[in-house]
């Protein structure tokens, strides 16, 4: 894949084509005689830093609230290529400190006997609208689609996320420890996603996965066509691709303007240090555009791009757009027809976040097959089973199982470890958090699920869900109730 030259030529094209159109970051005129070296840069709000996550992924490995827990006599499915029978896993201070056979259990640890049961990494869903489309559904809590314009890169799912959504507790009781909450697919560019610890209560900011990289939701195909077809367009796929290119063209120019400004500013600073000439005002920075900040960051490779796409041609064409503008797509979501272009996806190292069961509910979903993930895996690609549903997020283990068994029935070899990775390690990769979670290994974050039986059995349920070393859910104690559910839910919390 040869992206960087394409990116450079795009930048040059941008310079040539657009020199007269955008605001040049030229230095303003000299100040009157006797003036000072006014640093105008300091007068502008630093919008680009507004949302910079001050956390690092390492912080996801530390949790002072976590007391030591050990699960013993249990089958450990690591999602890292290994299954350990009759093993134990020890979690302390937020991370996994030891796992295997014959390991010593710290005397301070709460010991859960896992006899006959199974342990897996916490499930990670790459595609959820929990919290932005809450239960009960009301227009008042419909915060997932900023469907006012085809591109709203300035929008952020975190600001729509309601941490009291009763769906959160149910997802967690299904073994989900982390999810990417995405804006909906009404818009071509819907805004930034929100990588959250699946944990109820408080407010969204309490549950941000520490240090998770920024993500961006894009969408092609039927949904934006339907939403904007009668709202001024784009109305067709022709219009969609023109709009994608227009957005990234603008972002490329935005980056150029910023770069030119930074150069001019550096020159000005040099001059000021030298004080060899008459005082002059600093060059004015280009106007900040919060949406462009996000797209420009995509072009700089700082944001993991998540694209809702069903059809093979949409997938291919989005890859072309990304190649032209020099950015990487991290995951195609839904990707119903990914199996038709899996070589392209493998070559570009783009994952797919897909379903096992969903198909046929709209034209672009007609060719869904249960073996999509298995075929992708068989070709050396990175498959993920996602939910896009507050119901199916509770059964992702079963959706992965069905995909594995369907593959095997069709003669496509898929190991249990590979299928488990579809809902753990591979999902962590798509979110850029695989260095700290997604597998069971010493030193990884203690995101762990204890299942009542084999996680690929229809009869199994998550018995204990541990997040960053804290026991978040225990079936024997029932689910936590969100604020909404107090006095407004079944008496028993089952």
């Amino acid at each position, binding site marked *: 894949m040869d992206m960087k030259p394409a990116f450079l030529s795009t930048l040059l094209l941008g310079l040539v084509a657009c020199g007269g159109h955008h605001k040049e970051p030229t230095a303003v005129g000299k100040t009157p005689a006797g003036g000072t070296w006014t640093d105008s840069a300091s007068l502008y709000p630093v919008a680009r830093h507004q949302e910079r996550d001050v956390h690092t992924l390492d912080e996801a490995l530390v949790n002072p609230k976590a007391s030591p827990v050990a699960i013993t006599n249990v089958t450990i499915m690591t999602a890292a290529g290994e299954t350990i029978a009759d093993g134990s896993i020890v979690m302390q201070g937020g991370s996994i400190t030891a796992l295997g056979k014959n390991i010593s259990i710290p005397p301070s640890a709460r010991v859960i006997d896992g006899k006959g049961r199974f342990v897996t990494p916490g499930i990670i869903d790459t595609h959820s609208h929990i919290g932005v489309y809450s*239960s*009960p*559904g009301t227009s008042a809590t419909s915060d997932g689609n900023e469907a006012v314009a085809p591109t709203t890169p300035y929008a952020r799912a975190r600001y729509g996320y309601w941490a009291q959504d*009763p*769906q959160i507790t*149910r997802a967690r009781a299904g073994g989900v420890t982390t999810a990417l909450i995405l804006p909906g697919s009404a818009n071509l560019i819907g805004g930034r996603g929100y990588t959250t610890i699946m944990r109820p209560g408080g407010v969204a900011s309490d549950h941000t996965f520490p240090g998770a990289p920024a993500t961006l939701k894009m969408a092609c195909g*039927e949904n934006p066509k339907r939403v904007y077809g009668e709202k001024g367009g784009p109305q067709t796929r022709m219009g969609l691709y023109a709009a994608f290119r227009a957005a990234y063209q603008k972002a490329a120019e935005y980056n150029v303007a910023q770069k030119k400004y930074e150069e001019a500013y550096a020159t000005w600073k040099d001059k000021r240090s030298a004080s060899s000439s008459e005082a002059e005002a600093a060059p004015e920075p280009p106007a900040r555009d919060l949406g462009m900040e996000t797209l420009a960051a995509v072009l700089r490779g700082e944001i993991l791009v998540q694209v809702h796409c069903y059809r093979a041609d949409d997938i291919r064409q989005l890859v072309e757009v990304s190649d032209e503008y020099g950015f990487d797509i991290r995951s195609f979501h839904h990707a119903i027809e990914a*199996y*038709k272009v899996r070589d392209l996806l493998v070559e570009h190292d783009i994952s797919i976040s897909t379903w096992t*069961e*969903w*198909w*046929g*509910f*709209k*034209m672009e979903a*007609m*060719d*869904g*097959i*249960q*073996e999509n993930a298995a*075929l992708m895996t068989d070709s050396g690609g990175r498959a993920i089973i996602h939910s896009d549903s*507050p*119901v199916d997020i*509770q*059964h992702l283990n*079963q959706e992965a*199982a*069905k995909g594995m*068994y*369907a593959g095997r*029935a*069709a003669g*496509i070899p898929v190991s249990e470890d590979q299928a488990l990775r579809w809902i753990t390690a591979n999902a962590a990769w798509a979110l850029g958090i695989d260095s700290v979670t997604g597998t069971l290994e010493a030193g990884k974050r203690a995101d762990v699920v204890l299942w009542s039986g084999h996680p*690929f*059995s*229809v*009869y*199994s*349920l998550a018995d204990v869900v541990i997040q960053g070393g804290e026991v978040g859910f225990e079936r024997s104690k029932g689910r936590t109730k969100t604020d909404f*559910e107090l006095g*407004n*839910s*079944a008496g*028993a919390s*089952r």
Partner: protein
Amino acid sequence: MKTTLPLLVLACVVSVSSVTAAQVAAPKTVAITGATLRTDKGAQEGITVVIKNGKIAALGKGVKVPAGATIIDGTGKTLTPGLIAAGTGLGLVEINAVGYTNEGRFGDAKPVHASFRVTDGYNPNSIVIDVARNGGITSTISTPRGGLIAGQSAWMTMGAGSVEDNTVDDSAALHVTLGRSAGGVGDGSRGRALQTLRALFDDAQHFGKNRSAYDRGQTRPYGAGHLDLEVLLAVLKGDLPMVVNVDRKSDIAAVLKFAKQYRIRVILTGATEAWMLADEIAAAKVPVMLNPKSNLPSSFDQVHVVDDSATRLANAGVEVIISPLGDASSARTLRQLAGLAVAHGLTWEQAFASITTIPAKVFGAKRGTLKTGEAADLVLWNGDPLELSSHAEAIFIGGIQQSMENHQTLLRKRYR
């Protein structure tokens, strides 16, 4: 109305897995030998079933295989009756989002469609049927939706052939939606919806007693035409059950009261909060149709939702039907839904009954069991039919082995 399945052209089926669309046919006699029979009554090993003329000719241990019969070795495999997917859009919905491929999906413009029968627009060649059938489903109760009264569902088998070939009952039940979702009446007021329904039943009673006056144009105005009123009369006479889609406890209580007042047979569907009235529902002998996956307080009518309402209802003595409820493309998940109910406390046998014998009993069709002399709708599985690791290996409907090939298997083969 009941129809019988005609015999189709005959040819020899060689093995379980080699059946393709072109080969689908009904050998005169097929024997599946040595299988484990699993039903809601338990498991029996070493069972042989003989299928002849579309029916089960013999079933049991030590059953003699007739000379010339095509033999399928069922050793190590599980034999069950075909599964019954009640309350789906199979044969009615091709692609949900493509409006014109939807049949019997009414908007709110007109509230009463009582005389509507899905069989008039049922598409037995739907690719969705082929996909769902591979989930071991041999029958669907295909159901209209929308308005206050959506119309009549039909019990359809899912075999190759015409609408007539597959119609078991073209008027299985009348479908009504009350509560907040009642379409086309009440301006969102549930009381107004129930009042409209009451007025319609009163009209039907009046119409039944004044037919000749109606024909002379000498009756008071009715809320619906005579075809619709005839159907409501059938409900009032107890000839046709009325399926009521409702979620909130208070709405369910109102339906029970209504049913008692008019002495009609009702079946609750959706019924999120039915578990709160489990004893009353059991006492009224009202069956409940539900989807065990639905555990979200999706609306204010569903805030008291629980994970195990199937278990709570069944253990109170309610006849529970497990259903994907309305979906066509994911109807094949029926057996998984039953398995989920087991995870939440139902016994395997209760769960299996809820997708076989209970819908058969509630909707009055001779399906859901394997009995000598009855239609040979059966499935041979490579394991526990409710388990994710299992799949159907052979499916017979009316004694005819069905093709396992469909849109999806063909795509997979093309792109493998």
